[in-house]
């Protein structure tokens, strides 16, 4: 085999250097790209977790107002002044949280649903000393329960719209069996 001329050796050496440099750049680019993908996924997971926690808090708040309102209408007006104030205050805080959620996400436009819940819990004879006491199976109590459920469903619907449940092929196979 003939020996390579000095010019060829210089060319090969330059090509080697270029390939090595490009390889190094590509490696770093891949590392940075991978890091960014991981960061992005992590950030999405955090956002999802934070939204879920906010919704869970709101659902708990709705349940509290629902329970207190039912108790209020089933109790004599003379015995529930404290409960009455708690409902008003809790409802106000609940609505402020809803407002914050819809402003910060530009979604959850469910004012109508929450307003209906408010009207059922604190409308009509609310705060009237001559209010009629109702039974647990009365229309009033059932309407409050239904309105609370509608608020919760609206929250869950919007959440599942933002983060639909993604089932992998494996899970589909599992569910199919």
């Amino acid at each position, binding site marked *: 085999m003939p020996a390579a001329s000095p010019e060829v050796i210089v060319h090969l050496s330059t090509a080697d250097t270029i390939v090595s440099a490009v390889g190094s750049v590509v490696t770093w680019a891949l590392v940075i790209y991978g890091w960014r993908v991981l960061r992005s996924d992590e950030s999405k997971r955090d956002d999802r977790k934070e939204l879920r926690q906010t919704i869970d808090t709101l659902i708990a708040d709705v349940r509290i107002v629902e329970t207190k309102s039912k108790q209020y209408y089933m109790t004599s007006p003379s015995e529930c002044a404290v409960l009455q104030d708690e409902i008003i*205050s809790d409802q*106000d805080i609940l*609505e*402020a949280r809803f407002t914050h959620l819809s402003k910060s996400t530009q979604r959850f436009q469910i*004012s109508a649903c929450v307003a209906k819940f408010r009207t059922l819990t604190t*409308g*009509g*004879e609310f705060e009237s000393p001559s209010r009629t006491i109702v039974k647990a199976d009365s229309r009033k109590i059932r309407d409050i329960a239904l309105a609370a459920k509608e608020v919760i469903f609206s929250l869950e619907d919007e959440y599942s719209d933002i983060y639909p449940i993604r089932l992998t092929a494996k899970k589909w196979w599992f569910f199919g069996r």
Partner: protein
Amino acid sequence: MAQDKMINVAADFSRFPGGRYLGDGPQSGERFRQELLTPALNDASIVTVQLDGTLGYGSSFLEEAFGGLIRVDGFSLSDLKQKLDLQSRNDILKYTVWEYITLAAEQIPA
């Protein structure tokens, strides 16, 4: 020319508004409407109502105070849309009040 007027419910009326009618208590929606809201709307071109700063509102208070403007005091929906400016950090509260006003307007026979 009529001047604009500002009503701060917590400062000018009560931090604990509640009840629908006068008979329900001294901080009722009916009293708020009769003593503050209606006179202000009659005198001023724009009435700003600041709703924040109270413990909260029962719907019975809100319905009587604001729905009553149409049902009892004879204001029209378009009057109130021009003259009434509601302020609160709680958007749902403002939405609810306008719902009561609109509903009261719908119930007035043409």
